[in-house]
């Protein structure tokens, strides 16, 4: 309320001016292009108001790629700063802001949305459904995620970014040590996005429970669908904990309560516990769908049914269950007693067992397969050894006694990047290459794809492998500079070179998307890889109602069976019910954004206006009886015949 305007915009750093300029220029460019090509209406009608799960999925992936870019630039800045000792590219405060936004964006606004995007696009198709259970809510999920992400991102130029790390430990993140609005951006941005994640959890759980095609029993569900199902259950139980944790810290900071303060009875450790009770399952929320993706791709390109399907299913369930009882391994050194540490040490190590089961099953699927080396397959194969390195070092960290030695060093940084990148990020890229033809009707260029793969994968190892040794040599996490005498220079140079390699890999991916859009060969059969599951049975681009006739499932790998049987199904169409598009989700989320923005700066009247906006849209929704419309048989015939 009493913040001056000259403090509103962050100033004083060339980097920030550059960001200002680039944001203004991009905005002008977008407005210009849309106006020049008269695309505003199209954008609103086809995309901003859509409730089609396929379009929502594509929007998720697009947004996630943007966030990968943003957080990737943060990563490069950090590497630039750490390359030589006593470097002055960033000062300490700015470095803190950058590793905080990097970590937060990568996990909350990149990894999870990327996977949710793939899930959105693929899962309804994989189970033979025409949409998700709640199409309207699905749009709300996307837009709240998007608005939350934007709110978090503008902190860089308005008001200042959070700087207490993505874990936001108190007292550092509290009002006294972080008085500026940065931490509020974290709390409220995540809160808004979290609403969307919870809704996604409920939506897809019900979709998978209730909307599978006839014949698709539990043990005939594709692996990706299975991993999604379990992930959604994790979301439903974990995200409310985050909601509460964020709300409590928001109360502490905005309204002077004492949950986590040092004074008046507050309990800083309560934050650490709440955060990681959500945070550890969160790690599995971004890894289980990745496992599902690799399973699909490996069995498709090994041209074999997944080995040990049932064991694969049960191991996911086991991992999910265990993920709720290991959270203390994130603070072994913060004063828990030996019994507590031992318990959490052992449960943590137990996760290695089901994970190992999965690794062996993937290997056995490959054994004697007729392997096709596509780009998607390369990413999936590279995942296995890299992820194993990450996993083994994870078990090293899980030994509570040893953890006293290397916790909060670069050993940890190396570990979690090994699992997150070779697990989640590789899976996102693999999935993108794999399902791209289904999304757009043409493949991404394989040659460019492979170049991108090698740059990124080698760059990744060059970046992060040395960090294990930096950690063992004592380099602490989250430091912004060091001395020549520390002796960490050589390995840091290597790591930074690797970072450039990854950046080139990413640029190649983006260029590939552009190149393929212009030049790739179009196809509309819809089954470019000789696919095994139902999503490949539709033509591409997939008609908005997905399946003209609902498929019947006769076993695991439903589409393989259909292709073998070749029995001609009688084609009598029936009218198809579809939900209507709606502008309410984006408007409601914009109102959330406004309200959140007001709260960040404690400008109560803006917060209240936003909140009223949210309530008004809720009331409008309550009175909205639009139950969709029917696509008539003639229309279906016209669309289906166009593919011939």
């Amino acid at each position, binding site marked *: 309320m009493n913040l001056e305007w000259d403090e509103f915009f962050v100033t004083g750093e060339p980097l920030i001016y550059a960001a200002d300029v680039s944001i203004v220029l991009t905005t002008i460019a977008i407005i210009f292009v849309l106006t020049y090509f008269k695309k505003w209406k199209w954008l609103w009608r086809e995309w901003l108001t859509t409730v089609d799960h396929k379009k929502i999925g594509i929007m998720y992936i697009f947004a996630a790629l943007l966030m990968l870019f943003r957080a990737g630039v943060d990563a490069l800045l950090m590497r630039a700063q750490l390359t030589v000792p006593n470097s002055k590219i960033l000062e300490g405060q700015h470095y803190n802001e950058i590793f905080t936004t990097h970590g937060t964006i990568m996990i909350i606004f990149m990894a999870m949305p990327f996977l949710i995007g793939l899930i959105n696009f693929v899962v309804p198709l994989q189970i033979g*459904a*025409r*949409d998700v*259970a*709640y199409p309207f809510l699905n749009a709300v999920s996307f837009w709240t995620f998007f608005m939350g992400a934007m709110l978090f991102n503008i902190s860089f130029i308005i008001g200042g970014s959070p700087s207490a790390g993505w874990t936001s430990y108190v007292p550092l993140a509290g009002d006294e040590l972080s008085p500026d609005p940065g931490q509020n951006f974290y709390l409220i941005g995540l809160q808004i996005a979290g609403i969307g994640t*919870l809704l996604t*959890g*409920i*939506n897809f*759980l*019900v979709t998978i*429970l*209730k*909307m599978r*095609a*006839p014949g698709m029993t539990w043990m005939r569900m594709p692996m990706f669908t299975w991993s999604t199902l379990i992930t959604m259950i994790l979301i*439903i*139980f*974990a*995200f*409310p*904990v985050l*909601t*509460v*944790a964020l*709300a*409590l810290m928001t*109360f*502490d900071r905005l*309204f*002077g*309560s*004492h*949950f986590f*303060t040092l*004074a*008046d*009875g*507050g*309990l800083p450790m*309560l934050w650490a516990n*709440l955060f990681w*009770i959500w945070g550890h399952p969160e790690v599995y929320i971004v890894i289980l769908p990745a496992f599902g993706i690799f399973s699909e791709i490996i069995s498709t390109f090994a041209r074999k049914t997944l080995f040990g399907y049932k064991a694969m299913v049960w191991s996911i369930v086991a991992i999910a269950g265990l993920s709720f009882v290991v959270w203390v391994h994130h603070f072994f050194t913060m004063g828990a007693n030996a019994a507590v540490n031992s318990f959490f040490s052992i449960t943590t190590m137990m996760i290695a067992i089901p994970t190992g089961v999965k690794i062996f099953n993937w290997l056995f699927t490959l054994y004697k397969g007729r392997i096709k080396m596509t780009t998607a397959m390369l990413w999936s194969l590279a995942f296995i050894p890299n992820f194993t390195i990450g996993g083994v070092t994870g078990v090293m960290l899980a030994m509570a006694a040893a953890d006293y030695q290397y916790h909060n060093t670069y050993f940890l940084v190396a570990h979690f990047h090994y699992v997150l990148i070779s697990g989640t990020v590789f899976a996102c890229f693999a999935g993108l290459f794999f399902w791209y033809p289904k999304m757009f009707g043409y493949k991404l260029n394989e040659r460019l794809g492979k170049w991108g793969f090698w740059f990124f994968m080698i760059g990744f190892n060059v970046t992060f492998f040395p960090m294990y040794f930096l950690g063992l040599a004592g380099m602490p996490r989250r430091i912004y500079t060091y001395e020549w005498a520390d002796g960490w220079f050589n390995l840091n140079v290597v790591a930074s070179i690797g970072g450039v390699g990854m950046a080139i890999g990413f640029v190649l991916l983006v260029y590939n998307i552009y190149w393929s859009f212009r030049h790739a060969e179009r196809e509309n059969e819809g089954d470019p890889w000789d696919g095994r599951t139902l999503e490949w049975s539709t033509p591409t681009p997939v008609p908005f*109602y997905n399946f003209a006739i*609902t498929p019947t499932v006769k076993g695991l790998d439903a589409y393989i069976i259909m292709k073998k049987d070749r029995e001609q199904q009688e084609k009598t169409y029936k*009218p*198809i*019910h*579809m*939900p209507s598009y709606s502008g309410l989700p984006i408007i409601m989320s914009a109102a959330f954004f406004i309200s959140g923005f007001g709260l960040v700066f404690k400008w109560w009247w803006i917060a209240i206006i936003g909140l009223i906006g949210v309530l008004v849209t809720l*009331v409008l929704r*309550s*009175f909205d*009886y639009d*139950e*969709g419309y*029917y696509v008539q048989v003639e229309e279906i015939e016209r669309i289906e015949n166009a593919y011939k």
Partner: protein
Amino acid sequence: MEYVQSEANKHDAPDTPLEYQSETGRLNILGFWIFLGAEIALFATLFATYLVLIGRYADGPVPWELFEVKGVLIETFLLLTSSFTCGLAIHEMRRHSLKGLVAWLGITLVLGVAFLSFEIYEFIHYIHEGASLTTSAYWSGFYVLVGTHGAHVTMGIAWIVLIIIQLFQRGLTKQTTRKVFVASLYWHFLDVVWIFIFTAVYLYGMVIHHG
């Protein structure tokens, strides 16, 4: 809705309640049950927080000095009764009596508002006695736990009001009955949460902890 494959048509039997007769109805009700699962996780976290913060009174008042049996008992009575009248409303709905439904919903609302008034009065009283959100960790936990429940009740009241308007507009249809049914689940859920609050906060605060 037809974009869902219905397993046989067992749901069209004449004795199926209206709200279960459409696929959307069934899906929404199931989704709401799952949402309540998430709400349980939410309240469980708040309860855990509250319990951890017991004893952390700083220099502020202690609960057994402020809690009064009478007010809390009245609140409990009001809310439990409202859950009962809400059940009667559903009963009337199943008998296809719009009038009965609206009447019992109206009574539920009155009881809900009365509950809220008592709660607000109670809060104001405590604040006067020097126990506010900012007094100590314990009171922060208290206000956020009990306040979250109160905020839910407020939402529930607003929601039921909206539904009553729609009942007047449209009568008993597959959609309106579904909405009533879902709102009633929510209302009962709030009642259950209150029983836990009554036990963990008030009973514990007044009797067990003090004694």
